[in-house]
Every structure is written in structure tokens, then in C-alpha cells.
């Protein structure tokens, strides 16, 4: 019990200090706002081009595809807030040897590395995404409370999957010190989540479900929101989340055994 309180208190001081540091750069707020709305407008434009040929994309209606785009934007905003500022820094710790200090702290090192900072610059994306999801899913017919709850649970699972993918890639820097932009690769390939997974050819669909679980990130929660959630997919999503998180934890424990500090 005391340790939960300890972690909660640590989190509060982590985030208040990093927020104070980030707010030193007010220009970033403007840049982020412009970039969020520019990206959203561009995505809508391309989506509308894709719909020019017919009324569906891989069997999805316009509103359904908007829900998927909204979920993608939401995950992207959360990435900017939490994942990117923390996990892209692991490699710097390895390169400069400051990981030693992290490992010595009386707090779980994975927790410290994953939550040390928070950036407010993902908030515009999160806000815009929530508005888009609410608007598009209400146009497609409001989901029942049970389905809404299921969608929230699936969204949580997709967040766990997303976090684990980021963490695994960032932790690989223990072995490949120079891979400072491995996380950028992930960001680029997850762009595939902008569109429902059934819009892709069958071979790619398989890759996006089993190898790089993009399908669980946006398509599965969107289906639940649109009232088409199935037990099989929900179970798959939960299983993928557990496997990914467990994998990230195991990898971190394993990686620490290989860590030999910067100068040795």
C-alpha cells in the first residue's frame, strides 16, 4: 500500500516538474495546434479521395472510417504526451551512461523510464480526436452503454500494446547503442492504423494483425464503438495486450543483465 502511494507521489512530482519545463516554450503550443489541425485536414482530404471511387473503403462507411481516423489521432496524441518524450530518451541514457543512475534509484526502472516526463503538446490532438470520434460515432448510431464500455476496454488494451511496442524498441538500445531513432520507425509504420485494416490486401492484413498489431490499435476498438464488436476480436485484443506487456517486461529484465554501462 505504501509503495502505491510512493509511486503516485513520484508521478505527481515527475509530471509537475516536466510540465513546468515544457511551458518554457510557449511557441510550441502554436506549432502543435497548427500541426494537429493540418494533419487532420490532410488525412480527411486523403480519406475523401479514397472514398471518391465508391461509398466504402474495405467495407467501411465514411463515418466508420472517421472513427478509425479519430482513434489513430487519439493514440498519436497520447504518444506525443507520454511515450515519445520518455521512451525516445532511453537511448541517450545508454549513450551517456546516465542509465546507471536510473538503475540505482529506489524505484522500478521501467516505471521511471516510462513516466519520468509528460509533454502537454499532445493535448490538442487528443481533444480533436475525442471530438471527431464522438461526432462520427454518433452519426453512425450511438453505441449502447455495454458496447461503449467494451470499446473503452479495447482502447485500454490498444494503449498497452502501443506502449509495449514503443518500450521494446526503445529498450533494444541497450544492445544497439546507436539506434536512436528506432522509435521513429514505429511511428512511421503505425501510420497504417489511419485506415481500417480491411482496406489492405489480405497479406498485409495478416501482417498488421499478427506481426505488427496495428489492427488491435484502431480497427478493433472502432468496431466495438460502431456496434460490431465480436468476442473473438475482443479476446484477441486482450491476449495481444497481455503478451505485449509481458514481453516488454521480460525484455527489460533480460536487458538489464546485458547492460555494462557506457565506458565498459
Amino acid at each position, binding site marked *: 500500500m505504501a509503495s502505491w502511494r510512493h509511486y503516485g507521489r513520484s508521478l505527481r512530482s515527475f509530471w509537475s516538474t516536466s510540465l513546468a519545463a515544457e511551458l518554457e*516554450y510557449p*511557441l*510550441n503550443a502554436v*506549432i502543435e495546434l*497548427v*500541426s494537429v489541425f*493540418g*494533419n487532420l485536414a*490532410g488525412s480527411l*482530404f*486523403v480519406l475523401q*479521395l*479514397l*472514398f*471518391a*471511387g*465508391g461509398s466504402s*473503403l*474495405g467495407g467501411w462507411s465514411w463515418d466508420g472510417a472517421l472513427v478509425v481516423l479519430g482513434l489513430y489521432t487519439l493514440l498519436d496524441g497520447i504518444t506525443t504526451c507520454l511515450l515519445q518524450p520518455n521512451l525516445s530518451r532511453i537511448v541517450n541514457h545508454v549513450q551517456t551512461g546516465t542509465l546507471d543512475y536510473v538503475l540505482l534509484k529506489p524505484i522500478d526502472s521501467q516505471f521511471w523510464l516510462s513516466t519520468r516526463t509528460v509533454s502537454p503538446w499532445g493535448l490538442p490532438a487528443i481533444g480533436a480526436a475525442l471530438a471527431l470520434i464522438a461526432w462520427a460515432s454518433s452519426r453512425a448510431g450511438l453505441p449502447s452503454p455495454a458496447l461503449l464500455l467494451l470499446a473503452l476496454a479495447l482502447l485500454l488494451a490498444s494503449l498497452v500494446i502501443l506502449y509495449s511496442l514503443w518500450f521494446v524498441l526503445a529498450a533494444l538500445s541497450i544492445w*544497439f547503442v*546507436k*539506434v*536512436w*531513432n*528506432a522509435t*521513429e*520507425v514505429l*511511428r*512511421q*509504420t503505425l*501510420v*497504417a492504423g489511419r*485506415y481500417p485494416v480491411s*482496406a*489492405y*490486401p489480405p*497479406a*498485409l492484413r495478416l501482417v498488421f494483425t499478427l506481426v505488427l498489431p496495428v489492427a488491435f490499435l484502431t480497427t478493433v476498438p472502432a468496431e466495438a464503438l460502431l456496434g460490431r464488436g465480436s468476442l473473438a476480436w475482443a479476446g484477441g485484443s486482450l491476449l495481444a495486450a497481455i503478451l505485449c506487456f509481458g514481453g516488454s517486461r521480460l525484455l527489460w529484465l533480460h536487458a538489464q543483465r546485458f547492460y555494462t554501462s557506457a565506458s565498459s
Partner: protein
Amino acid sequence: MRLRHGWRVARALLVSQYALMLEYRAEIVLWALSGVLPLIMLGVWSGSGAGAGAGLSPQQISRYFLSAFLVRQFTVVWLIHVFEEDALQGRLSPFLLQPLAPLWRYLAAHFSEQASRVPIVAIMLLALGLVAPGLLWLPSPRSLLLGLVAIQAAFLLRFLLQVVVTTLCFWSERAAALDRLLLIPYLFLSGLVAPLETFPPAVRRLAMATPFPWMVDFPARLLAGEEVNATLGFAAIAAWCLLLLPIGRWLWLAGLRRYSAMGA
């Protein structure tokens, strides 16, 4: 005499930067992998009827996006990220003492990175050919030659555009954030995510008035063997370069006067 000296400097720079890039080959593999966006978009477009609506055959679509993939791989510019760090950490100061403008060093680094990408991209294409044998084709010598020249021209245009943004590093500690804004029109107007033929005529005219379509759409269509006005394309790239060159030079010199080596 001057010419021989210039050649010696260029060779020394290229050889040393190439050796440096080979040290980073794991990272370059990841960089190359992060350029898969055109291939993802190929998946979406080949599944949607929108291409046929714009009068594009499936073969044209796949050749266009494969060419766009190649163009993207060899026109990557990361000057601003390296320069921001060099300026912030004071590494720029020793470069400025040398009798060589620092930008040449960065340009050589970009060319070396392109050279070290060649085998990686070849392997990626080979893998693609194994998975989907119908996708690859051999361009005619004319379109291959013109396409390769156009790729280098597009790279120079992108480099110059980023030089202009990079000089803002002298005034702001976070100029790299501005590059994210520039990435938005590049993403949506260049033809990276949708062929320009599918744009509504008004949007297409607007896009053609910006430098972005000449960075992807023009070289990609040359490479894919489409009907392109090559003279107009090269003239447009040259015109944009001639416009950016004096702006970049002026900003660079003004920035240098401001530069006081961070921390001094």
C-alpha cells in the same frame, strides 16, 4: 588549382562521411524501414476503387507508389535535427574555425547516407519482388536515367528548403519543431500519399504552385514511365532552388553574426 583543391576536399569529406555512415548501418536499416509509407499507401489504394475513378490502372498505381518509395528513400533530409544538436552543444564552433563552410560537411553526410542506403533498398525491393512478383518492373533506360537525375534534383530542393528552416536554429532552441510544420504540406501535397491525378483540379493547381509536388510526384512519375513534361519539371525545381538559395544564404550569414556558441 582551386578546382583540384575543391576536388580533394570533396573526396576527403565524402570518404570520411561514408565511413562514418557505415558505422551507423543498423540505424540506416531502420531509417530505410521507416520510409515504407508509400508502400502502405499502395496497399490502401490498390484495395480502393478510387484509382480507377481517376483513370489510373492498377499497374499504374503500383508503379507510381513503388517509384514514390524509391524517391522517398533517396531524398531524405535530416539536416535540421543534426544541426540543432550541433548548435546547442557547441559542436558547431570548431566547424566554423575550419576554412570550409559547415554546410558542405552536412551535404556530404547526406550524400554518403544515400550511398549507404543503396544495398538496403535493393534488399527491400528484392524481398518485395519475392512476396509479390508482379510488382517489380524494369524501367526503360530513358526513364531510369531521367528519374535518377530528378531524384537528385528533388533532393537538392529539399535540402535547400531545410537549410532555410535550419538557419532559424540560430534564433530559437527548438527550430526542429518548425520542420514538423513543413512536413505536413510535404506529406499531403507532394503525392506521397495520393497520386496528384486523383486530386480535384483546383487543389491540384494549388499544389503545383508549391515546391512540394516536384519533390515526389515529378521524379516518381518520370521513374514510373508516365507522360511527364520533363523540361517543365526540371525548370520548376531550378526556379525554386534559385529562389531559396539567396534566402538561405542571407539567413545563414545573419544567423552566424548572432551565434555566440551556446553557453558563452
